[in-house]
């Protein structure tokens, strides 16, 4: 038996805890909303950041991280959307090496695995959208 927890409580606790840890740096809960006006652009959001934790009280006894970021390609022109998505695939799918700026916090990824999820079209915005999931495997 278990009780369904209230995510609202989760969000309140996360906000407090992060504020406590990071103070005086401000912490905001952000619901991603896109105000971009360009004819083509890409957004991303990170999810599934998780290292498996293993037995015992040693905090460092844990595994590798394999987070995913979802890239969303927006373009008024359909070919632009496909070409931008293809550029991401060509560059990242199967890629192993430096990820990010090598001179500023860049790090080594063992492999990047991209999945082209689906295409869609937003009639109100007049934008083609292609959504890709990119998972990267990080030595820890």
């Amino acid at each position, binding site marked *: 038996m278990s009780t369904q927890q209230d995510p609202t409580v989760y969000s309140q606790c996360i906000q407090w805890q992060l504020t406590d840890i990071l103070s005086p740096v401000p912490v905001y809960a952000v619901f991603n909303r896109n105000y971009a006006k360009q004819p083509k652009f890409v957004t991303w959001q990170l999810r599934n950041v998780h290292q498996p934790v293993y037995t015992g009280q040693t905090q460092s006894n*844990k*595994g*590798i991280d*394999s987070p995913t970021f979802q890239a969303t390609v927006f373009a008024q022109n359909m070919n632009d959307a496909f070409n931008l998505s293809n550029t991401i695939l060509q560059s990242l799918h199967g890629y*192993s*090496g*430096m990820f990010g700026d090598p001179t500023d916090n860049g790090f*080594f990824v*063992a*492999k990047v695995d991209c999945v082209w999820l689906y295409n869609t079209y937003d009639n109100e915005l007049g934008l083609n959208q292609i959504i890709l999931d990119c998972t990267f*495997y*990080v*030595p*820890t």
Partner: protein
Amino acid sequence: MALINKVLPGYVATLWMQEADSPTALTDTQLGTWANVEPIIGTEAGGLGTTGIQIPVEAVPPFGSDDAFAAYSIAGARTGAKITTQNQVTSLSITAPWNPADTAQLLVREDGTNGTIIRTYVVAVYDGTDTVAYAFNGRIGGLKWDMSPSAEGKFEFVIHPVGGNSYGWSNNT
């Protein structure tokens, strides 16, 4: 450089072999010496890539040694004992996505047909900066091509190590 001090994704492992048609396998001492192993490993895994070629495998299988022990017991005694014996180096069952024109796979195919060629193989583990290498000598056996329509065509083979001591660990220095 020090040994890699991280927990690593399985993706960091790559499999390399000497690329000569009739190679001179490394000696037992050389198998554990980075200067001898480094040329077999490609630059993308922290080696020199001068005498080796990568085998494009789906995954590097477990490597190391087989478990072997002698067990004995004494009548009337509560416990017996297990004593480890000389463990054999583990055979590697390899599955590769088959490309009939792949240079490394052709070399493996020829080794398997020949049956006697002893070649040095290296499993390289690379974290982007440093490399740890497990090198051993072996022959190729068990060539199979699996063209099941439910998946991509696969080229399967087994690398059988030669001798109980014919392996070594090394890392870049």
